């Protein structure tokens, strides 16, 4: 086996293949980046080496905090000047070491030869400057175009990235664009000067699946056409599988593995990569079985373990892992930082499966529904702007479904389709405009105060953002103990403390955590605290609103398993609201698909994913990439086009007809009713 020093131009030699002698476009060598923080020095990137060839698509994956963005910002030399610095290494771009350039030389490269697309389309454009100006800026600065030329080119670029009516929209401002449109503008800016390299840091994370597919398709197309190299930073393995030629896996500031995409997905050689691939729920596979997860948390970069960074969580750990493992070449043409790479390649050690498969899903009592929603409608009256013209947002329109005891009902749809509002209506945080909500047979909208109070305890919620939903000035113990005191569920301090310890144990936290404050916990731990707080009230129904969306893949798997375990132990019912179709497939028993406030389809999980009947469901499923390069690369380009219409003026008739490939004149006539097309499978489409 070949031992490769990390200081060598390691990746390039392998990936360049037949063109091995050609110089790579970008070669990062032994990059070290540090931040000074109040908590001491954080080594955000350590000894990272990789290269990117002309026209190549390289993906960088890794959990939050693993150093992906810092790597990108180091290449752009845009690290926060006051706290961050590159302490060692070379970044050779087109033969020049970027780290040696002065500010002005670097400025000339930015936007001209290397451009960057950022994660947050909502905040990455200047709110008070016209879109046109923002696109024209690099053209005028780098290419010296005059006003008229730059304007013409900006129109061209906007057409290229699929923004209709470009001339008029040049004069508009960012807030007049949707998230997807803003990201297209960012891409137009990135492409403006025909750069050689585009770095896209989570370019679609903030976008809906259908928009995400459009944007990625566009980026890939353009980079192929214009021979632009692309570094895509993401945590979505499906995206990696579809678009990347080569993959770099980072773990806690170091490279764990890199190699051709096919190899990384089908023959991973590093235990972390293997664990990562196992812990993602798959949209293309039936759910049901328990997710395998990587136990534990990533290490803190302020005080990382001395040997292999992954050792504390690695099922293959041996004595030799105490020393930092060198990068070794794998049999698949990549590199892996694991001492047992050869054994893994030989298949002589197997992945230690997580403890006994906990078996089938919880039992669903088929009789009476626990929660029953009928004709639920919510309109918000909004004033539009300075003139105070009032509009009516039809957030939820005639939604009906049942949740049975012990069941998980998934609720999916794009942002703004009304998922969260449905959850809030059930929680009575919002007054419905019309409709009925029955819980345990009682009508919540006509319930007395006393009945409502009892029901409030039984219906709990877990939010997306664990940070903002926990009071920062309360300790974990106080947060979890508060409902116990308010509802008098435990008498006396000792009893409360004991119950808090018990609840923390149930969600996999140690009892000592009770004295910590939310900011001292990781995202996954905070979400566990949120779950413990919900459990404290002994609920029978929990609304999980994007409960795992903000978490990293390995942590997400842990929380999903936890939710399923608790369901089994306490017979809980969940309304699981999410936009991630794979997660919903994994956890739900039945699924409701919403679009623009209306229910499009309701079916058993496997029936829905196997044979979706509604055109919207089909497109939604088609838009979500699966983490398998073989499947993805064989797949035809994505179909769905267009943007979500405004809920202020939803289309007449079938609300989906503006984007539906099957739409005909009859679809505009009337709203198609939800009808039972097959037993237990309801669909709202005239043609399905």
């Amino acid at each position, binding site marked *: 086996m070949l031992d490769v020093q990390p200081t060598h131009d390691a990746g390039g030699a392998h990936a360049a293949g037949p063109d091995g002698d050609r110089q790579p476009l970008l070669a990062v060598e032994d990059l070290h980046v540090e931040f000074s923080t109040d908590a001491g020095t954080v080594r955000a990137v350590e000894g990272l080496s990789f290269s990117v060839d002309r026209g190549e698509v390289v993906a960088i994956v890794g959990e939050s905090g693993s150093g992906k963005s810092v790597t990108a910002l180091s290449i752009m030399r845009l690290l926060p000047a006051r706290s961050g610095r590159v302490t060692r290494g070379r970044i050779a771009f087109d033969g020049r070491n970027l780290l040696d350039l002065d500010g002005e030389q670097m*400025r000339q490269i930015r936007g001209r030869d290397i451009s960057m697309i950022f994660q947050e389309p909502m905040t*990455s454009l*200047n*709110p008070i400057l016209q879109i046109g100006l923002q696109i024209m800026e690099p053209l005028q*600065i780098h290419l010296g175009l005059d006003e008229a030329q730059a304007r013409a080119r900006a129109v061209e670029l906007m057409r290229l990235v699929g923004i209709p009516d470009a001339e008029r929209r040049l004069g508009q401002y960012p*807030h*007049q664009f949707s998230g997807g449109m803003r990201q297209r503008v960012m891409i137009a800016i990135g492409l403006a000067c025909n750069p050689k390299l585009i770095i896209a840091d989570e370019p679609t994370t903030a976008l809906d699946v259908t928009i995400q597919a459009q944007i990625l398709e566009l980026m890939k197309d353009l980079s192929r056409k214009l021979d632009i190299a692309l570094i895509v930073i993401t945590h979505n393995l499906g995206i990696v599988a579809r678009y990347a030629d080569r993959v770099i896996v980072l773990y806690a500031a170091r490279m764990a593995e890199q190699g051709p995409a096919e190899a990384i997905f089908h023959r991973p050689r590093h235990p972390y990569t293997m664990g990562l691939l196992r812990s993602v729920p798959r949209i293309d596979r039936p759910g049901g079985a328990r997710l395998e997860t990587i136990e534990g948390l990533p290490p803190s970069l302020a005080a990382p373990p001395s040997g292999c960074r992954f050792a504390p969580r690695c099922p293959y750990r041996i004595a030799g892992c105490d020393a930092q493992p060198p990068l070794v070449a794998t049999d698949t043409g990549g590199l892996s930082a694991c001492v047992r790479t050869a054994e893994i390649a030989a298949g002589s050690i197997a992945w230690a499966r997580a403890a006994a498969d906990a078996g089938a899903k919880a039992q669903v009592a088929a009789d009476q529904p626990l929660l029953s929603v009928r004709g639920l409608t919510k309109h918000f009256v909004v004033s539009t702007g*300075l003139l105070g013209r009032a509009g009516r947002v039809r957030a939820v329109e005639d939604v009906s479904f049942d949740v049975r005891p012990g069941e998980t009902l998934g609720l999916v749809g794009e942002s703004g389709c009304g998922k969260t509002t449905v959850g809030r209506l059930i929680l009575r945080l919002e007054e419905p405009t019309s409709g009925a909500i029955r819980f345990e047979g009682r009508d919540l909208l006509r319930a007395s105060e006393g009945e409502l109070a009892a029901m409030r305890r039984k219906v709990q919620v877990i939010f997306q953002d664990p940070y903002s939903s926990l009071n920062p000035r309360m300790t974990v113990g106080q947060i979890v103990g508060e409902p116990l005191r308010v509802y008098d569920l435990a008498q006396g301090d000792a009893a409360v403390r004991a119950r808090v310890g018990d609840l923390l144990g149930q969600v996999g936290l140690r009892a000592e955590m009770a004295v910590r404050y939310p900011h001292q916990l990781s995202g996954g731990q905070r979400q566990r605290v949120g779950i413990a707080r919900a459990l404290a009230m002994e609920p029978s129904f929990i609304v999980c609103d994007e409960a795992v969306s903000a978490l990293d893949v390995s942590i997400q798997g842990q929380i999903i398993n936890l939710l399923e375990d608790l369901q089994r132990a306490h017979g809980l019912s969940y309304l699981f609201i999410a936009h991630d179709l794979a997660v919903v497939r994994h956890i739900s028993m039945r699924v409701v698909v919403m679009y623009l406030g209306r229910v499009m389809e309701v079916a058993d999980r496997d029936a829905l994913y196997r044979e979706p009947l509604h055109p919207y469901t089909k497109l939604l499923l088609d838009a979500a990439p699966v983490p398998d390069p073989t499947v993805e690369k064989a797949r035809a380009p994505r179909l769905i086009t267009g943007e979500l219409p405004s809920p202020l003026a939803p289309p007449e008739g079938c609300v989906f007809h503006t984007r539906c490939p099957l739409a005909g004149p009859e679809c505009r006539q009337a709203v198609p009713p939800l009808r039972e097309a097959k037993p237990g499978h309801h669909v709202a489409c005239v043609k399905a």
Partner: protein
Amino acid sequence: MLAYAAKRILLMIPTLLGVAVLVFFMLRVVPGDVVEVKLRGDGGNVSQETIEMERRRLGLDKPLLAQFGDWMVGLVTLDFGKSMWTDRPVVEEIGTRLELSLQVAIMATIIAVLIAVPLGTFAALMRDTWVDYLARIVTIGGLAIPSFWFGMLVMLTLLGLFNWLPPITFTPLHVDPWTNLVQLIWPAMAVGYRYCAVVARMVRSSLLEVFNEDYIRTARAKGVYEKLVIVRHALRNALLPAITVIGLEFAFLIGGLVVTEQVFNLNGIGVLFVQSVSRNDFTLLQGLVMLVAAFYVVINLAVDLLYAVFDPRIRYR
């Protein structure tokens, strides 16, 4: 935009009416009236009869509601009545002083903004260097030192260096610009210091905030010249909150310069305020309060409209 402005202007009417009601009744709660101060003020022995006569002349003998009604009718017809002390129309009393106060306020604003914006910008750009520290000392001084005290310092310096004393009478700008400017530049600077300190700190902190925004990173990633990043991308966003501060300070300068006016021997709105309070000159006081309230309301509207001009999110939403 125009419709919005019209609507806001209409909304000013109820606000001002509310102020009018409040000020009228609050003044009547205070014991004593102008007649007593005027006729018995220096211990003069004036017969009750004379006092009653004077009261009748000024309408102070009418029931409270009738007085209020008279005043309201006056307000609606823009007749603010006469000063109870001097018998000159309130409009005239205020008018001559307003010219002076307004001029001081405008000059102070110009001086403050011209200094504060560059000062705050450089402090933010050179954060934690000696420039920033110096700016910080200067601005903290501006906040900590009362304007009138600073004014006295200026006066004494002028007296010591040039043997200059503020003239007794006010020369309006249109009569003799030079004399006028020489007279008013010093008080304008004295109050401008504090003003400048407030604005500079605002500019610095909001600029530092804007520098952390994603769109600044985007601008740099595009290879935009650093100067352009600062002026076009950062400063324009950072100045929005400063507009609010400037507006509030300006409105304050119209009525709040009591001591500074005395120090510089100026007969402005502030001094008039004090006089009319000590004389229980209700009509004049009511007029003054209405003037200051109107200023606040108008400036608030102007700030909002300026916001709309600078910020398209407000303009088009």
